[in-house]
């Protein structure tokens, strides 16, 4: 696509889960690219495949039932899919780190937070335990927690503080790519504002690229550079944040914006998308959005739309834009 090398490029990735009730096509045609230092907002509803995509990048898809059926995940030009397990273990945490949604369950309750940060550092860096603990203290201060609290256990922290600890662990080895899976969804709004401000700061200091998984377009507007909209396992629109917010093209993206109550306007009724997300074991033929699409044409039920570039860097998968 571009001659400049991207940090992460995903090409036509498909992940299926084989279950008793049929094959769940969690990801069908996932194409994505993320440049150095960029933040990509990865937006979609529950079941769209956001978390599966993150787990696929980390090579953490449970197998069975999960299986990467086809595609490529190029990280710094190398395909992660062919990597042996021990090489992957070096990459995880060191080069690609992940923050999970729920800070209450992603920390070890029986280990002090300082030790948990040090554990990560010791795994990837050749430091003595004392040096690692010292670095852990420093990391805590970086995320706005006093170093004395390194000896405390997770239950002694509030939700927002725990998520700070998780961020400290993720950034401890200065990864190239940070995958944040709904990092603030479990937090209250005023705490969310604190954590988002922190993440923005750290992203600038560490020049980390970030894949931010969220369902909140407000967070995207606040902190991302690019946006990819995911629907039923495929990226249906991907663009620069400004292009996507000022000129959303895909009917689903447009509808998504309209279904959020506008805090600055008076609205009688919200406009809605009829129906619900399709069953991933039984995706519609053609474009997976066509049964709900207000602009669907006869062709939409037969042809899977390809990636159409409506303007440089703004890619839409919708037949409405084909003729241009």
């Amino acid at each position, binding site marked *: 696509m571009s001659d400049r090398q991207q940090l992460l490029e995903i090409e036509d990735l498909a992940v299926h889960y084989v279950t008793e009730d049929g094959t769940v096509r969690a990801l069908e045609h996932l194409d994505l690219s993320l440049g150095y230092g960029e933040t990509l907002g990865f937006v979609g*509803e529950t079941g769209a495949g956001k978390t599966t995509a993150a787990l696929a990048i980390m090579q953490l898809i449970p197998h069975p039932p999960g299986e990467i059926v086809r595609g490529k995940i190029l990280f710094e030009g190398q395909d992660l899919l062919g990597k042996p397990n021990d090489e992957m273990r070096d990459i995880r945490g060191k080069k690609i780190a992940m923050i999970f949604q729920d800070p209450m369950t992603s920390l070890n309750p029986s280990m002090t937070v300082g030790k948990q940060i040090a554990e990560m550092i010791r795994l990837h860096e050749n430091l003595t335990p004392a040096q690692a603990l010292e670095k852990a203290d420093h990391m805590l201060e970086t995320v706005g927690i006093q170093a004395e609290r390194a000896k405390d256990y997770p239950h002694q922290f*509030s939700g*927002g503080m725990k998520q700070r600890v998780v961020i400290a662990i993720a950034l401890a080895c200065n990864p190239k790519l940070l995958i944040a899976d709904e990092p603030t969804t479990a937090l209250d709004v005023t705490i969310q*504002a604190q954590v988002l401000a922190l993440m923005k700061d750290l992203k600038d200091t560490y020049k980390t690229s970030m894949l931010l998984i969220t*369902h909140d377009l407000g967070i995207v*507007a606040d902190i991302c550079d690019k946006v990819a909209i995911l629907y039923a396992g495929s990226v249906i629109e991907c663009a620069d944040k400004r292009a996507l*917010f000022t000129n959303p093209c895909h009917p689903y993206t447009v*509808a998504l914006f309209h279904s959020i109550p506008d805090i600055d306007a008076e609205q009688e009724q919200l406009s809605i998308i009829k129906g*619900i997300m399709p069953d991933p074991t039984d995706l519609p033929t053609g474009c997976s959005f066509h049964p709900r699409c207000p602009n669907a044409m006869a062709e939409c039920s037969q042809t899977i739309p390809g990636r159409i570039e409506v303007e440089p860097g703004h890619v839409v998968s919708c037949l409405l834009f084909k003729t241009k």
Partner: protein
Amino acid sequence: MPGTLIEVKNLKKYFVTKAGLLHAVDDINFHIEKGETLGLVGESGCGKSTTGRVLIRLLEPTSGQVIYNGDNVLLFSRGQMKDARKRMQIVFQDPYSSLNPRLTVSELIAEPLYVNHVCKSRQETQDKIKKLMDTVGLAERLINSYPHELDGGRRQRVGIARALALKPEFIVLDEPVSALDVCIQAQVLNLLQGLQRDFGLTYLFISHNLSVVKHMSKRIAVMYLGKIVEVADYRSIFEHAQHPYTRALLSAVTIPKLDVKRTRILLEGDIPSPINPPPGCRFYGRCMYRQTSCQETEPELAANGSGGLVACHFAGKLGA
């Protein structure tokens, strides 16, 4: 006040815990007019759900009064309360845990009808169930489905149908859309507004999501640590909020738009524990305008001069 449906006076709900008295709801006053939606916003642990539950006596308050249509609900006998509950219903946040997984949609909707002996015959019950399903937008083919077969939006519709079954006047909506995706959330919000119009319902809409609350409500009450800190018309609260906490809360809302000119007010620290709260203003520890006097006297909820109420010693003096 003519047209007032509910008036809450000095309502308190304390929970006894090992660590001390938890002041979940601490001396709050508000009223809800007939046919209006009062939005109740606040962060987790501020007491908004407890308020909703005490209002319809799912929890017994420690003290205070809830006047419903002129009668103090809290003095009702068991029998009177059973009658009153036909008029006051609740829709819970989590449609995954508030429906009995072993009952079908029709059994779930029939339950309130049976309990109150509303229908005389089996046929009448069935007709009523179908009519309710139609009202909340559930397809008739789902009548024998179990909750696990439904998605979150449909489950919440079942919860709403149950609440509507006895033709209530007043419904407590306790975070009815928080567990739903935005597209489904929009469908349910539209449904709730439609029902309010058609049946003249009065809502107490509890949520932590300010955009949703604003969309639904006529007046909004903001709670912090068991106290109501500000009540105002939905417009004035967004345009000129007076309480520092309301301002911070508003500034923390993420808005899906570019180039929004806003000053972010980042509050220090976390919400303090509601167990044995200190005297004085509850917001003292996180407030950027705090003065020593705030720690000594607790601010009363008082008229703010523009039709609303605010509980801050420095209301109106903090600049725009």
